């Protein structure tokens, strides 16, 4: 362990806003094990209502370096709608009658499982469609970020700027597997042989 934190207050009285052009960034800390009663909400996994004919279901598990489930992870997704448009109106929690929130949140169950009901996003510009994924967990001092691509788009993945740079086995970690009618499987492996590709920005 390093030296004790300084007892004296670190900051001088706040300087005028104009002088604080580059304030120090706030460091990340783990979400811990006890967010379950605070962050998840009932409609969190339902980016679209279940009655939508074009709804898809994504299921997966979060696994640790021993291949064991991570039962205290929080998975968040953010994506464009079926036309490729990213929602810009308020309503990310309640969908506000728009039928599509773009944002989903699901805490993992005791088997590390999570699910989302959503629609397949339209392609953003020239790239292949994907869903942005963030995972928080006890033991993760900052989140991991990744992308979920779709298996039926394999033909366009070779030209996708991120996927094209990855060796084939690593690329596979970013592509969901078909799992039946309008269902996909997408596991997140935090560590180990098939560790998911995580993104730095």
């Amino acid at each position, binding site marked *: 362990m390093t030296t004790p934190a*300084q007892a004296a207050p670190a900051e001088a009285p706040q300087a005028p806003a104009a002088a604080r052009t*580059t304030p120090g960034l706030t460091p*990340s800390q783990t979400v811990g094990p006890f967010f379950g009663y605070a962050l998840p909400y009932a409609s969190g996994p339902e980016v679209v209502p279940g009655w939508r004919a074009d709804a898809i279901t994504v299921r997966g598990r979060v696994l640790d370096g021993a291949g064991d489930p991570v039962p205290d992870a929080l998975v968040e997704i953010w994506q464009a709608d079926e036309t490729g448009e990213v929602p810009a109106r308020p309503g*990310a929690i309640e969908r506000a009658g728009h039928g599509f929130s773009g944002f989903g949140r699901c805490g993992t169950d005791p088997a590390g499982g999570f699910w989302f009901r959503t629609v397949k996003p339209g392609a953003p510009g020239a790239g292949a469609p994907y869903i942005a994924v963030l995972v928080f967990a*006890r*033991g993760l001092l900052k989140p991991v970020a990744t992308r979920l691509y779709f298996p039926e788009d394999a033909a366009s993945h070779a030209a996708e700027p991120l996927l094209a740079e990855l060796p084939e086995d690593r690329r596979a970690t970013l592509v969901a597997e078909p799992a039946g009618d309008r269902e996909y499987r997408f596991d997140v492996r935090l560590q180990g042989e098939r560790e998911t590709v995580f993104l730095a920005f």
Partner: protein
Amino acid sequence: MTHPPYLSPDYRSTVLRAPARDLVMPKLGPDSVELTSPVFGHHELGRLDEDLTRRHAGEPLGERIIVTGRVLDGAGRPVPDALVEVWQANAAGRYAHLGDQHPAPLDPNFTGAGRCLTGADGRYRFVTIKPGAYPWRNHPNAWRPAHIHFSVFGTAFTQRLVTQMYFPGDPLFAYDPIFQSIPDVKARERLVSRFDMDTTEPEWALGYQWDIVLGDTPMETT
């Protein structure tokens, strides 16, 4: 380096959960989706969501406090309409979570979860009670310093930040591997709130100020 590394062995749970491979930077950087953020509206939040002391029939036990500050971007500009979510232990150091086995009393008048949207000036404000320290099983005689968990959305999904706010002068800082996981002492101290007499309300509640500064991303490499 602002953020802690993924692998911080003194915090045992990181050992099997920290990614071991290098993070990959997409050649073109973050994409249009990742550079936008979910947008939240006031209609989605309850009126009492920002007062954690008024969610039950009675008042919770403990030291009533006001916690307020601004959400800023890396250039120091306020981030309005940012969703800020908080959760915390009660005054005795016990979470209202089934997994919390600490033999300290639950408070029937305190759940310990709240949320709010920042105002036009980026300001958030919560009324709550000061959380207690609590033991955990990371190492023998391990105790977490009192803290409030914060979850914040910025204007880009890459800015998403989950962190913890601490209280000034806590004697447990030196022994806490989660606090100490942040390598830079100055960055670490940015998680410590500042007692503020101007925020303190006479004969009612002590006030603490704590600003949150979002970067481009919490997922920076090393």
